[in-house]
């Protein structure tokens, strides 16, 4: 081989093509009427007029309905704030317990991770519906459902971030004679704080959206009102509620972005 020859092409160029082929086959199977979810464009085409009339109603919000949406909207925000606050208090120590670098004990780490996997595998709406049966209708079951949902997310994300951090400072702390508790408190917590703040702010935004849905099963907030206006086919009022949620989510996103820049 002379110096001017091109190097040989890298092997395995067929792999992405095979991956795309496998994805297409699985997608075709999942969409097929025999074994899949029976996805049909026909149904969309047949019912387009029905959909168009609802979309038309949605783009004409009923502004006179606004005063009635304020108390449930405030309740939704209160539920989101309380659930985020309590979840953040519980999640930081749990995150340290769930990460290998901050908890070398395999057994306690495994127990915490298994419990959190169980907590995370149950959807928030299911939590809310069971909790409504336990403690009755209102904001309380909604808050507890959001709390469980949040702990699962924050601990997963923050513990993974701790695992990805440089182990050097923790080892230095150990070499200096620090106990695991001291190392976690002084070094690991400071390292994990940016990820923790990020996740907590993200969870607050998630909670606002989730708590609007939890009301559908009686767990307080805007969901109860959404269910009521949907039952009476008042799509003009529904669109007003959607607009309000949109504004609230944008405000929270902008504010949390500013807080993130200041704190992280």
């Amino acid at each position, binding site marked *: 081989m002379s110096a001017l020859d091109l190097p040989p092409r890298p092997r395995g160029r067929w792999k992405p093509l095979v991956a795309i082929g496998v994805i297409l086959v699985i*997608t075709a199977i999942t969409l097929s009427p025999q074994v899949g979810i029976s*996805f049909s464009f026909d149904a969309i085409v047949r019912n387009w007029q029905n959909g168009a009339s609802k979309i038309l109603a949605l783009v004409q919000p009923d502004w006179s309905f606004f005063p009635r949406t304020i108390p449930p909207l405030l309740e939704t*925000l209160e539920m989101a704030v309380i659930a985020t606050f309590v979840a953040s208090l519980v999640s930081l120590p749990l995150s340290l317990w769930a990460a290998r670098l901050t908890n070398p004990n395999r057994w306690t780490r495994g127990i915490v991770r298994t419990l959190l996997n169980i907590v995370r595998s149950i959807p928030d709406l299911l939590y809310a519906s069971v909790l409504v*049966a336990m403690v009755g209708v209102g904001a*309380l079951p909604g*808050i507890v459902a959001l709390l469980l949902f949040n702990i699962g997310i924050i601990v997963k994300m923050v513990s993974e971030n701790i695992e990805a951090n440089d182990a050097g400072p923790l080892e230095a702390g150990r070499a200096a004679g620090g106990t695991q508790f001291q190392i976690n408190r002084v070094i690991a917590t400071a390292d994990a704080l940016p990820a923790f703040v990020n996740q907590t702010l993200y969870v607050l935004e998630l909670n606002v959206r989730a708590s609007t849905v939890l009301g559908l099963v009686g767990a307080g907030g805007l969901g109860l009102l959404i269910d009521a206006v949907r039952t009476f086919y008042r799509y003009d009022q529904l669109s007003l509620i959607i607009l309000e949620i949109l504004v609230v989510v944008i405000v929270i996103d902008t504010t949390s972005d500013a*807080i993130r820049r200041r*704190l992280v």
Partner: protein
Amino acid sequence: MSVPSLFTLPPRPSRRGRVAVGIIVTLIVVAAFWSININWARLGSLPAEILRYLWLMFSAPDWTKLPEALLQTWRSVEMAWSERCSA
């Protein structure tokens, strides 16, 4: 004003921003706890209720529902896959 020597430490960075954010967040949380209409006493009955419902759910599972549950789980996975691919 004295000129700082080479050996004086630089001033600590200002923590005013963090303190302000902390105060605002605390006020929001306190206001949320204060104004929400909840009977917190109901929380006391929650542990006993959780145990009761866990017993109801897991003491004698209805295994006859298993085939239908597996089928619907498969459908959920298919819906998630199709949605993921179209996204």
